[in-house]
């Protein structure tokens, strides 16, 4: 099946810093999602981004499908950005495969 790798596994930032999270996948995909798992465990949709670039406030994402990777940018990080960030791609039709996540801690 498709392999999904996220990097870095852990990231510690000072409030106000910028960061880039990466998601590599082993096969061509027709959709990709980024999620933020908050401290209460809920998975929040950030982006549905099969290709191209999208922006939502301080967050943006770029997927280069031909090169099999996606990047999530967080600018001017805040403590509320802390949590785990997952990317997920379809392993087979509508069944997603999740990466292992990037755990982000933002210190005040």
């Amino acid at each position, binding site marked *: 099946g498709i392999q999904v790798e996220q990097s870095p596994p852990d990231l510690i930032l000072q409030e106000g810093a910028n960061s880039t999270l990466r998601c590599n996948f082993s096969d061509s995909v027709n959709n990709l999602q980024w999620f933020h798992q908050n401290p209460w465990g809920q998975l929040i*949709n950030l982006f549905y981004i099969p290709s191209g670039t999208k922006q939502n406030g301080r967050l943006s994402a770029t997927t280069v499908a031909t090169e099999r990777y996606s990047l999530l940018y967080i600018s001017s990080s805040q403590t509320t950005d802390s949590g785990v960030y*997952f990317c997920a791609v379809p392993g087979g039709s509508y069944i997603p495969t*999740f990466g292992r996540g990037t755990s982000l801690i933002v210190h005040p």
Partner: protein
Amino acid sequence: DAMVIQNPRYQVTQFGKPVTLSCSQTLNHNVMYWYQQKSSQAPKLLFHYYDKDFNNEADTPDNFQSRRPNTSFCFLDIRSPGLGDAAMYLCATSGSGSYEQYFGPGTRLTVT
């Protein structure tokens, strides 16, 4: 707002005592998923429904069952919970067009 709702948010059960978790959705999506997530791990798919068509993942224990009586509701039954079943249980839905997933807030299960 259209959403995915899970009840209860926290569930404590005794070892071996059956428990049912519920999920409902107002998105009218035809695909519903149940995931198990343990600490510091990615969500692990247990099963999913495409409409009423039930699909069990190969490594989902027999102890876990599911029911989907209609489009809006889906239930996860754990027949005899063990200590290893303590986890966060996440329900998600997606439409058949884009398969973009929407998650509920989860139910955190404790087994004593």
